[in-house]
Structures are given as C-alpha cells and as structure tokens.
C-alpha cells in the first residue's frame, strides 16, 4: 500500500479543523485510510513543519496527493460536494505518427490555463507525478508523464518515433545539447543508476525513440526518460501542457485524468480543463483528451441492501454514496436501481460491488447491523487426511522424546545436494528464478538440510540432540498442470557423541508400530503379512559406507514390498558440511503411504 506524506497544518486547514491525533486517526479508520505516522514531535525538535504519513489503498490513485485526500475526506465529512470537471474548447492538437507504434503507441495531452502555483502546490504537482510513475505507471513502463510551460512552445504538437542519432536537445537540468544515443549512454552512467538510469531499459533497444516536439520542431520531451530544459515549468508558469505517453491505453487515461482532476483546481476557472485534439489515425485512436465525463453505472438497490443486510431507500443509499465522491440518483427507467456517476477520480470502480462497498463505507462498517443468518449447525468439519497422518507422526515422535522443529522449505542448492553428497540430476528439485539471497535457490527434496541446520544453530544444546519434522518436500512432475507436487515427509535425526543408529532404528520401529506395522525378520521373508524391514543400501551417499539402509514396507498380505524411505549413519563429510561436530543418524519416510 502506498504511503503519502502531507503537511499536517495544510491538510487541517483544507479540512477546516485542527484535529486531535486520535480524532483524525478515527476519521481515517472509518474512511479506510491509515494514519501511519504523525511527525509532530520530531518536527518540533528539527524545527520543521509536521507531516502526516497516510497509507492509502493501492487502487486509490486519487488519494496520492494532499489535494485528493482533502477532497475525499471533505466529501466523506459532508463538507464538500465532488467537483464537476469541465472541458473548454481545444485550441491545439497532438499529432501521433505511426512511427511510435514500435516503441510506445499511445499519447494523450491536456492544458491547464492560468494556473497559480505556490511553493506548496508546485511541490505537490511534482510529487504526484513521482507517485503515479512508481505506482500505476509501473516505473514509467506503462505510462510516462511530461509537463511543460506552454508559453515556451507552440502547437500543434507532434509525437513521433525518431532514430536516436537524429534526436538533438538540451535535456532538463543539463547545459548542453545531447544526441539521443549520447543521452542513453549518459543516463547509463553509474551516478544515474538510481535516477533516470532506471528507465533506460524501456526504450534502449528500440530502433526509434519516442519524441514529443512542437510545431517548430523544438523537442519537448523524450518519454519515458526526460523533458527538455527548454520547456521546463517553474513556479511562475501560467499555462501548463501535460502530455502522457503509454503502452497501455486504459492506464494512460487514468493517469492524465488524475493529473487534471487534482490540479485544475488551481486554474483561474476552477476545474476547467483545456483538452487537445489527438490525431492518431494509424491505430484509429483519434479523439479529444482528456475525457472528463463521469461514467454511468446502474446498480440494483436490492443488490446493495442484500449484500449489506440493510433495507435502505434508494435516496438513503445515494446519500451514503455522495460521501464517497459518487453522485447517485434513483434510476428514472428502472425503479429498483440507482444511477451512479463515477467521476474521473474513481477509476477503481469496475463493478456494482465497488459501489456496494462504497455504500457500506458511507454508511459506516461499524454501524452495520450484525448478521444472524450463519449457524454452525449444518456443517460437518473434517481434517485433511494427510494432516491427520502428520499429526500421528508428530505426536508419536514427541512422545518418543524428539523435539519438533519447523525449518524453512527453501534452501540453497548446495544444502539440498552437494552438502548431502548427492548429485543433482535435474529431475527432482524445483529451482527459483529470482531469489534475493543464496539461501533460497531450490525447494527442498529432503527434510535433512533443515534438520541439520537446526542442529548446527543449537550445537551448544546438551547432547544428544533429537529433532524431527513432518513437512512437505516438492518434486517436479511434467505430467501435472502445475509441473510439481508436494509430498509429506517425516524425518528425524539423532546427533551425539556416537551415531545412535540403533536409537534411530528404534524410533523407526516405534513409529511403524504406531501405524500398525510390525517388523518382519529375515528381510521380510519370515512372514507375508503387513509389515516393514530394513535392507542395507549403498546407493545413498549421504550415509556412511555400510551403514545406510532402505525402509521396505508391505502394506497388505500378498502385496509387493516397496521402499518408503531410508535411514543410516550420516556420513562424516555431511556432518562437516553442515558444521555439526558430532556423529549422527537419520531416518526419513514418505508419510503419504499411511494415507
């Protein structure tokens, strides 16, 4: 969720009241934003102006600046009505050339006439662009915003794709002219890495770069990287040209709408926006931008009442909605419905359920009548069968004096293979593409690495250390839709001055007894009933030579036996790989055979 920092006094002035922190907190709570931090105390020490840090919903782009937060809260409090945005006549055009198709197809523009900037709203104007760029615009990949002093340029404007070497202009905050390809190299320098450098990849490999220029060919911007020094805005700018370029048309409209909705309030004619004619013939996208008309949505009154457990009249619902920037009125055609006008500030509304939620917030979540409909009587609970099997393993192991541990599922490739003296043949383990650390490279295929890591961290514990885990390992399987599956395993380790193999063997016996599975002597030959035995097995390099075995299980009389796990004395190299300076033994079973 994004956090927006606003000047505390400025916000309270806009709300017409100096709130106590607790009271403001309460207001935020009911509206659905969160007061994260009030810097008053800190600011007093530093002699700065106190800020409020407010966390907003990730879909509320209209709340990314103080103007939007104040407007929304004032509407919620009933102090203001939602503004009505009006368009004046367009005076100029933005002509989009087909050449942009290969790099960044869409553009929109708007003009704010006779705007009055103050240091505060100017800063907010810049900050909103940053917030939109990093949130909705996905770091300028989807949309990029450019703002210009209209009085330094002259329409009609052009949006073209131009080969890098043919682009020449002085970029913002630079003193010399750069060629397009030079500029890319300039922004790829290390000192630009966390600044403009972050966006270079968006256009770098394109044969043409997107350029906005004016009627005389003066470059206004090279989106999504940088505006030109020539057309830069300042506190004294009177007329602002806002242009947006995009790869996603829907988000393009949302972004330009937010910009004009928030800042047209500072124009001489409040909330009046001058649109531009967009000429985009190659893709049939010619139109006038921005489109400030509210979208109409008809919503059933019964639907809202039924979801909220209320019996409100349409007019009452409309009142609740007006607190949420939604102008609604009973539908003249459909008696059981209301017509809701969704302003350009609320692109988050996609479905009548969003209107229904706003009706609930307007009413007050904590005032809603509590339901009495749900009864527990008609439902029979059941555990997941494998979890029941797990519980039997867990309880039996702890009763046998082992400690349950919960290591992580992710581990390094070495921990899962090399440290266990096992080769990765590429058929089993799921591998991660983008881990942040080497600790998380694969999803484990054995419980042993986690158990040995736990022992390592607890080396100072009194010996012997006896720990177990019942948890999932993951194997690849190309036949499945998800290409991998979990398998529940049980693993127990004994670590001490001696290997304790017989103790681990005895624990296995205890567990098998718990699952009604007796030991069968002579390697399964002395009886043909259900049972288990162990057989020496040299195939597991994790174990000390001559001290590794497989666990064989015959489920029913007459059925063939199958291997369900293994046990053995852990190879000294394995112990050393995990920094455990003791001897140890290990047993691991596939728990799913007991389902």
């Amino acid at each position: 969720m994004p956090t927006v920092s606003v000047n505390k006094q400025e916000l309270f002035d806009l709300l017409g009241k100096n709130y106590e922190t607790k009271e403001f907190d309460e207001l935020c709570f009911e509206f659905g934003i969160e007061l994260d931090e009030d810097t008053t105390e800190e600011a007093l020490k530093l002699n700065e102006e106190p800020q409020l840090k407010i966390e907003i919903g990730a879909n509320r782009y209209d709340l990314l600046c103080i103007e939007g937060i104040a407007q929304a809260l004032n509407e919620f409090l009933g102090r203001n009505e939602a503004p009505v945005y009006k368009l004046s006549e367009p005076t100029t055009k933005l002509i989009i050339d087909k050449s942009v198709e290969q790099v960044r197809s869409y553009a929109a523009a708007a003009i704010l006439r006779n705007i009055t900037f103050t240091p505060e709203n100017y800063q907010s104007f810049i900050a909103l662009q940053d917030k939109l760029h990093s949130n909705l615009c996905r770091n300028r990949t989807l949309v990029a915003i450019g703002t210009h002093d209209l009085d330094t340029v002259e329409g009609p404007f052009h949006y073209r794709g131009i080969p890098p070497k043919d682009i020449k202009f002085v970029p913002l905050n630079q003193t010399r002219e750069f060629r397009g390809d030079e500029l890319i190299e300039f922004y790829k320098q290390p000192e630009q890495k966390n600044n403009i450098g972050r966006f270079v990849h968006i256009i770098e490999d394109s044969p043409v770069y997107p350029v906005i220029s004016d009627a005389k060919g003066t470059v206004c911007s090279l989106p999504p990287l940088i505006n030109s020094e020539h057309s830069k805005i300042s506190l004294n700018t009177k007329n602002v040209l806002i242009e947006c370029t995009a790869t996603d048309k829907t988000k393009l409209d949302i972004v330009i709408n937010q910009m004009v909705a928030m800042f047209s309030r500072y124009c001489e004619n409040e909330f009046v926006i001058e649109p531009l004619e967009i000429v985009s013939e190659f893709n049939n996208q010619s139109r006038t931008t921005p489109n400030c008309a509210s979208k109409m949505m008809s919503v059933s009154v019964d639907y809202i009442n039924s979801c909220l457990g209320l019996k409100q009249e349409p007019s009452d619902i409309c009142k609740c909605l007006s607190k949420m920037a939604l102008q609604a009125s009973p539908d003249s055609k459909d008696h059981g419905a209301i017509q809701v006008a969704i302003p350009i500030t609320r692109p988050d509304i996609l479905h009548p359920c969003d209107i229904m939620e706003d009706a609930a917030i307007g009413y007050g979540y904590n005032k809603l009548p509590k339901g009495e409909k749900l009864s527990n009587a008609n439902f029979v609970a059941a555990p997941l069968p494998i979890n029941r099997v797990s519980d039997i393993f867990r309880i039996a192991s702890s009763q046998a004096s082992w400690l349950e541990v919960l290591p992580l599922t992710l581990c390094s490739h070495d921990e899962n293979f090399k440290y266990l003296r096992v080769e990765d043949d590429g058929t089993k383990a799921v591998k991660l593409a983008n881990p942040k650390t080497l600790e998380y490279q694969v999803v484990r295929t054995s419980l042993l690495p986690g158990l040995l890591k736990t022992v390592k961290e607890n080396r100072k514990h009194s010996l012997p250390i006896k720990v177990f885990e019942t948890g999932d390992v993951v194997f690849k399987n190309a036949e499945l839709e998800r290409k991998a599956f979990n398998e529940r395993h049980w693993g127990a380790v004994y670590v001490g001055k001696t290997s304790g193999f017989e103790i681990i063997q005895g624990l296995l016996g205890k567990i098998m007894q718990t699952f009604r599975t007796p030991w069968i002597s002579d390697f399964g030959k002395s009886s043909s009933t259900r049972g288990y035995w162990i057989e020496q097995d040299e195939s597991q390099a994790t174990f000390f030579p001559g001290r590794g075995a497989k666990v064989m299980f015959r489920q029913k009389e007459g059925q063939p036996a199958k291997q369900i796990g293994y046990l053995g004395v852990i190879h000294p190299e394995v112990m050393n790989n995990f920094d455990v300076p003791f001897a140890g033994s290990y047993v691991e079973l596939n728990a799913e055979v007991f389902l």
Partner: protein
Amino acid sequence: MADLQLDILEKLDKDGEIKSSLQTFPNINPQVILSALNSLKAHGKVDYSKHDKIRYSLTKEGEEIVAKGSHEIRLLHLVEKFGKLQIKEVMTQMGADGKVGQARAFKNGWISKNKENELTLSEKISSSSDVADETKDLLLKVKDDKLDGIDDKVLNDLKKRKLVAPIKETSFNIVKGSDFSTDLTKPETDLTAEMVSTGSYKDLKFKPYNFNSEGIIPESGALHPLSKIREEFRQIFFSMGFTEMPSNQYVETGFWNFDTLYVPQQHPARDLQDTFYIKDPAQSDLPEDKEYIENIKAVHEDGKYESIGYRYNWKPVESQKLVLRTHTTAISAAMLKELAKDPKPVRLFSIDRVFRNEAVDATHLAEFHQVEGVLADFNITLGDLIQFMESFFAKMGVTGLRFKPTYNPYTEPSMEIFSWHEGLGKWVEIGNSGMFRPEMLEPMGLPKDLRVLGWGLSLERPTMIKYGVQNIRELLGHKVSLDFIENNPAARLDEDLYD
C-alpha cells in the same frame, strides 16, 4: 558404624559430654568418628567441635636410642673400654651409627684424636659417667609427650636427624544435640516397594521432605510452539464446521495464484520484487476447462458479469509462469472452482506456508504461514461476515473488534479486522477479510447469489504477540532455540496473558 554411633550416644547419655574422642575412643580412626558424628548431627542427635593437635612419635632409630643410648654415648663407652681406638675400628664396631656418634662426640668435646689416628677420651673427662646422654633424655621426654620446655629448634633438630616424626591428631569434643536420644532408628527418605509389600512402612519413620524445591524435570519431547498455535486455530475451525483444504501445493501457476483472483497482469504483487518465480520447471499448463480460461480472459480484458474489466491485453504466457504461491487463496480459488460443479454452502479453511520474495528482517521471512477461512452461502451479508468474525475471534478470547475499509484485489467489500491489544495499548490489525469479487466467482460458474466470505491472517503474528517473540526468525526456521521449544507451555489462544 551403627555400633560406634550407639557407643557415642550412650557415653554422652552417661557423661553428658565427651571432651576428647581421642581419649574416649583411642583406637578408632578419627575419619570413622567424623562420619558417625556427621550422620548423628544430621538427625540432631549431637553437636561437635573438631580439634587438631600435632604430636611427635619416635622413629625406629629414636626408639633404638631410648633403648641403648645415643650413638655418641655408645662410642664414648667403646673408647673408654679400649682406652685407644683406631678410627677405622669405629665402623667395624658400630657400623654406620659409629660415624654419627663419632661426629657428635667430637662436637660435645668428649673425645680427641692422636697422631696415630686413634680416638681417646678427651682431657675434659676422665670417665663416661661424667657426661649425660642429652639426646636420649630428650627423646624420652618426647616419647612421654612431655614437650613443655623443649625448644622448637631442638624439636626441629631431632626431626632433621630423623629421630622423631610429627603426627596430626584429631579429636572431637562432642555434646548432646537438640534431638538427643540414644535411639538410633534412621528416618527413611523414600517409600519403597518392599515397604509397601511387607507393610514395614508402618513401623518406620520418614524424613521430612523439602517441599521448597523443583523436583526432577523429566526428559521429554515437545511439539513446536507455532504448530501448537496452529492446532488451536484448527480446533476453532473444526468447532465451527470447517473442512481443511488440500493446501499441500506450494508451486502454483500465475493463473491460479493471480488471474483467477482477478489480479491484473501488471499488478505490483506480480513483480519480481514480491513473488518467487520458478525457472525449473519453466512453464505450466493452463487448466483443461477452456471455457473458464475464456471467462478469465474476458473479465480481465473487456469486462464481463457487469464488470467493465481492467481493459488490457490478457496474455496466457503470464498465466503460465510458475510461482511459489504468495497466498493460500490460490488453493481456495481451485476449491471454489470445484464447488461450481455443485454449488452449495461450504466452509473451508487451511493453515499452510506461503512465500514472498521479501528482504528478511525481524518481522519478515520469505516463508510464513497463512491462516485462511472461506465461507460460501446464499445471500449472506457483510453483517454476517462481521458477526462471524466476532464469533471466530471470540473463540480465541479476542472481543470488541472494529472493521476498517481496505483494498484487496479479490475482495469487495474488504475489511481489516482490528482488536484492542491490552499489552501494547493500541488497536492492532489481527486479520483481513472480505467478500470475494463477482469477477472472481462468476467466471468459475458459481451462481450470483452464492456469496463467498474470505478472511486470513498470519499464524506467526498472533503467536509473536501472544508470547512476546520479537524476531520471527526465533519462531520459524532453523534459528529457533531448542530450549524455547522444550520449555514452551501449552498453547491456549483463549488464555489472557495480561491479567
């Protein structure tokens, strides 16, 4: 031993005090006496004080001197007898002692030596009766323990000459103790099987037990604290009729983890920054239900089911990316899709691992457990969800909930659940909940009036708050302390730790 104890007690009973054990029991080793006294003292029968004294005894050579006279006097007698004695004859006559006697006789000025190397009486004495045998006299005094008046220097000289040896003598002064009696029956420390079967316990005295002690802690195994809390949650779900979902599937497709939940393909949650993507296996399949895929595509791209949609190009290739599930809701979605075959009220839950590609710190791990409940029923309301949450959390002793509007991509309305935390003195978020969006449910084929409530919380957070664990790594993963697991009490969510 018991005899000695009895002797001591009887002597005390008769005399009132034993001034010196050495005198009373001269032939008993003081160590034996000490152990008898300690045993008696432990039962309050006697008190004692210990006194150490050094005594000297004569060596074998010393005893010989007392019997035969000192070497020097014997040499003198020899010289007197022969008148003149060749020095070489001294050894022949007296052996090694002769040399010592000769040296001391010279020193005492009893004898002298002429030119022929012969010993004669010195001019000072005419007969051996003129001299006293001081060495013998001294040794006699030592033997009789009459050391008064004997200089320490002289004693040390005797010691050096190996005529006497020091002996440490320990003696005890014994008096009656507070529980004095001549009865020696020792109280028993424990009841034995033999006493029970023979009935001998009836005649025995038992030592008082020290109740101000902890006893012997048994060696035992233990379940992990987090899994104990998990079990508490499971039991709450079971008590409300919830069935556990098959959440044992960590690898998910972009389709189930995101698309089905109406999370658009450019949503930040799908960033590499937040989600673990999988490189091997490389790509998933799409579900076999082609109609479902078409519905998902439609509702994302152009809108359907009264939704205007997100209006972007939905790409199957994004859906086929494999991820480690970021929430168990991916499983809930698959379960709800199954429900569409036979829509009816259901209650489902899971408590299982989820994965986030986050930087690890005190409150974040790349893996943690999500507790998730899903409740589907016809025409249920937001008020039902509120009431249900209150019942659910009341079962773990959490009451007085408040609900805050919030945003989740797949629920609308969405509510964060807050409760007042007495220990922290503030409202804390304890869970997230909502009604699943129609854009999620209707593509599955679920009827419009079957509404589905979902809520979730992490398992670690309430556990950390409940037990004051500051660092999540001390709770989950290999860095947990085994002592913490061994000594952790039973988990009882309804137990109020702040009373």
